[in-house]
């Protein structure tokens, strides 16, 4: 447990991706089985404990601390696990004697017991009932130091939130065997924590594990953005085009075990399982195969906005009411496998034909085919992209965020291979905003003010105009421009709040950004009532007086469908 706690602690403070990879790889290399396997499971979201919940932790700390002091502390720290880890009363934190050195805490509290290991913790959390769990967790918290308590509580409350994705952890594991992360993905879902077989393979002590999972995740194929001049080089006759739907890219996979039982899974683009939240989809996939498609909410045959879809996302459990109000749907792009047949090496046209036949047999209202856009030249496609409604998208045009171009002969390859698939998004909207706050960045940018909150004008209560924040962006500018903006922020600071600086923003003095964004949504979380999707700094308008920046009315008009 100590080494695992140490790892989480270091990861939480390490801003650089490569730094995180090195830390995880080093841990996995130097930690024995099964400890390292459970650590990998924790980082990939593979450990879920049914009975261990945040409420249990709150109850434990409430029994041990003054409620006023706990409330003041929690309010100060802002994180339950950390507050409890820091406040947990330790038996030997006794007062000092005389005026000198405070007594050292015992090197290993509870030293008459063997030190707590991660496998002990996992077994305890899995096998203990609701009534015995509180006492067990309390005994562990008594025996651990502050970092150990923090790590244990993070593990129990789920979601480590230390800036490590499942993909990053698997990439670090793959580096042990010097293999591509996608190879780990391919065997991943046939394996269970603590992944002893996986490490044996990575370390060259055993053959590659059989991918026995009948419904594995297959690494997703991604596209490149169309760039200026691409159309001069590409032949329209060699490509198919489809709409790019504004939903969540998913993989719906169904298979049958040798014993005849069926397995149906829904994966996110990065291979996280999200099927539990979408029983309406998993029930509907009655044919064995692997569909690559877009998760959408569909009402009465019409695709709903991303905003509507969001209300069904990020929920571990769904109610009957949610299922009825936000019916989930998959618009299928591709078929990666059919029964035991891996189709990924086939060309796009053949996979497409197999997909159409598959959907015909499936015959479910929850699944439909993403239609092809008919075009003979890039000019025709340009026209279709400008008006999806007239070009076949019909009432669903609102949910189109651009076009996808796919080479007719392209196989389905993991990652972002060059030359096969292109995305051609709708033109981003542009709006002139005024810089209001700047925050320091991370990693290489940690000494630069690189994250910007900007606003547009609206009528204030006292009659004068005021700025209201509408978005936050941290890219779209060059390194040289970043240095200039950083200098501007430092010279025009009004106030400092920790890592954030408030920057001068009056009608006559301030900095204007031309901000590009993909869409707008109503939002109750923001003062302006509007949230931007994918904002980025398009241009820095050093020349423009802030008073001439846009007004909220302009965004309102766009939101109403202008």
């Amino acid at each position, binding site marked *: 447990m100590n080494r695992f706690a140490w790892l989480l602690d270091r990861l939480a*403070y390490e801003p650089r991706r490569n730094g995180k990879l090195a830390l995880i790889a080093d841990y996995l290399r130097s930690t024995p089985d099964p400890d390292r396997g459970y650590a990998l499971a924790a980082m990939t979201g593979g450990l879920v404990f049914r009975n261990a919940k945040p409420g249990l932790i709150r109850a434990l700390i409430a029994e041990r601390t003054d409620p006023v*002091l*706990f409330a003041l502390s929690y309010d*100060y720290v802002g994180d339950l696990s950390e507050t409890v880890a820091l406040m947990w009363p330790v038996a030997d934190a006794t007062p000092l004697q005389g005026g000198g050195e*405070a007594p050292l805490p015992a090197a290993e509290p509870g030293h008459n017991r063997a030190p707590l290991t991660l496998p002990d913790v996992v077994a305890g959390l899995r096998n203990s009932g609701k009534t015995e769990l509180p006492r067990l967790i309390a005994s562990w918290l008594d025996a651990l130091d502050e970092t150990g308590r923090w790590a244990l509580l993070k593990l129990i409350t789920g979601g480590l939130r230390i800036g490590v994705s499942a993909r990053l952890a698997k990439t670090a594991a793959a580096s042990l065997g010097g293999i591509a992360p996608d190879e780990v993905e391919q065997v991943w879902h046939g394996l269970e924590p603590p992944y002893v077989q996986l490490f044996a393979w990575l370390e060259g002590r055993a053959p590659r594990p059989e991918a026995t999972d009948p419904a594995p995740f297959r690494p997703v194929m991604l596209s490149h953005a169309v760039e200026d001049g691409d159309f001069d080089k590409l032949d329209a006759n060699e490509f198919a085009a489809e709409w790019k739907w504004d939903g969540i890219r998913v993989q719906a996979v169904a298979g049958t075990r040798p014993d005849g039982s069926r397995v149906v899974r829904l994966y996110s683009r990065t291979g996280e399982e999200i099927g539990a939240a979408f029983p309406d989809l998993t029930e509907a996939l009655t044919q064995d195969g692997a569909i690559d498609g877009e998760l959408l909410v569909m009402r009465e045959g019409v695709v709903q906005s991303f905003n509507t879809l969001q209300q069904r996302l990020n929920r571990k459990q769904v109610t009957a009411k949610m299922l009825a109000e936000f019916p989930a749907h998959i618009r299928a792009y591709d078929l990666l496998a059919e029964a035991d047949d891996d189709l990924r090496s086939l060309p796009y046209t053949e996979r497409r034909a197999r997909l159409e036949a598959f959907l015909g047999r499936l015959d479910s209202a929850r699944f439909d085919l993403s239609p092809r856009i008919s075009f003979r030249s890039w000019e025709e496609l340009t026209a279709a992209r400008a008006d999806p409604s007239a070009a076949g998208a019909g009432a669903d045009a609102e949910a189109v965020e651009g076009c996808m171009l796919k080479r007719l002969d392209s196989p389905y390859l993991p990652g972002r291979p060059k030359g096969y698939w292109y995305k051609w998004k709708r033109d981003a909207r542009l709006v002139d905003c005024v810089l209001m706050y700047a925050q320091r960045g*991370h990693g290489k940018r940690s*000494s630069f003010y690189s994250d910007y909150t900007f606003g547009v004008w609206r009528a204030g209560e006292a009659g004068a105009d005021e700025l209201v924040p*509408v978005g936050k962006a941290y890219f779209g500018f060059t390194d040289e421009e970043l240095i200039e903006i950083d200098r501007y922020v430092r010279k025009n600071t009004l106030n400092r709040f920790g890592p*954030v600086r408030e920057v001068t923003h009056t009608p006559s003095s301030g900095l204007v950004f031309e901000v590009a964004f993909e869409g707008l949504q109503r939002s109750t979380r923001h003062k302006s009532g509007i949230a931007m999707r994918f904002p980025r700094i398009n241009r820095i308008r050093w020349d423009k007086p802030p008073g001439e920046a846009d007004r909220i009315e302009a965004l309102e008009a766009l939101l109403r469908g202008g």
Partner: protein
Amino acid sequence: MKPSELLTPTPAGLYCPPADIHIDPVRPVARALITHGHSDHARAGHGAVLATSETLAIMALRYGEAFAGTRQPVAPGETVRIGAVDFRFVPAGHVLGSAQIVVEHKGLRIVVSGDYKRERDPTCAPFEPVPCDVFITEATFGLPVFRHPPAHAETAKLIDSVRLFPERTHIVGAYSLGKAQRLMALIREAGYERPIYIHGAVEKITELYRAEGVPLGDIRKVEPGERNAEGRRALAGEIVICPPSAIQDLWSRRFPDPVTAFASGWMRVRARARQKGVELPLVISDHAGWDDLQATIREVQANEIWITHGEAEALAHWCGSVGLRGKPLHLVGYGDEGEAEPEARPAEAEPAEVAP
């Protein structure tokens, strides 16, 4: 005599009517007693100043020789009578020259502790508990989440990191009066003998510590020439101590791929460290943590506890829970230098997250 007749909070700071003096006044006054040299306690422009010789030297260094009309040094343990009131300066263990002031009149004893800590500090005399009727304490770290680990263990983390990343410069933020020198001494105690480099803003105070007889080993200022590529390479794998404000300032950009560390009691809270972009937090505090505040209050056996600044509500609440009278004084003006400086709380520091 009631305690409030002997000492009373005023806008200028704590005032003692029978002696007509202020303690650590935040505005210019005729006669001031100063506990220690941090600028929120020791300000320029008073008529007469009584303080330890080290504190007077620190004030002269920072404000110039003309920082007060007259000055009078007082030795540790020495009693000075002003009017009919006795004042005694007793070590507080906070920084070089820091003292508690014991105020005694007609059988009533009040201890003004200033800022203090109980952990050993090789650069200053240790805190001496003095039994009293009223104890006036700070509460910078007056929440039960602030439990400081042993400073030598935190120092070992720094030295381990230097060993682990010999190609990276370790930039350590430390308050320029007190923390920086304590850290140097701790690093030396850990057996690290390489030169320690410092930012220009730390230089003069460090010289003063040396002149007062605190051994710190080979200390070198980072020279402007070390901006160039060759100079930067020379500082790879070295420890550089700078004021906290410099760790994310333009100044730090001269070092390639630095490890950013910060020595402060605030580093106990992760969000604090992340806000500052600190990769290597070192929980080393010059103020008493929660357990030591409690232990000290019990040890001096006072029935009444007055709390000057910091997390006064929480400490006053605890006093009530053990049958002591805890009273926040809400003194304004403390906490502008060093660890007591007010910053956004981690739970509040992020402005409302906006989009996507």
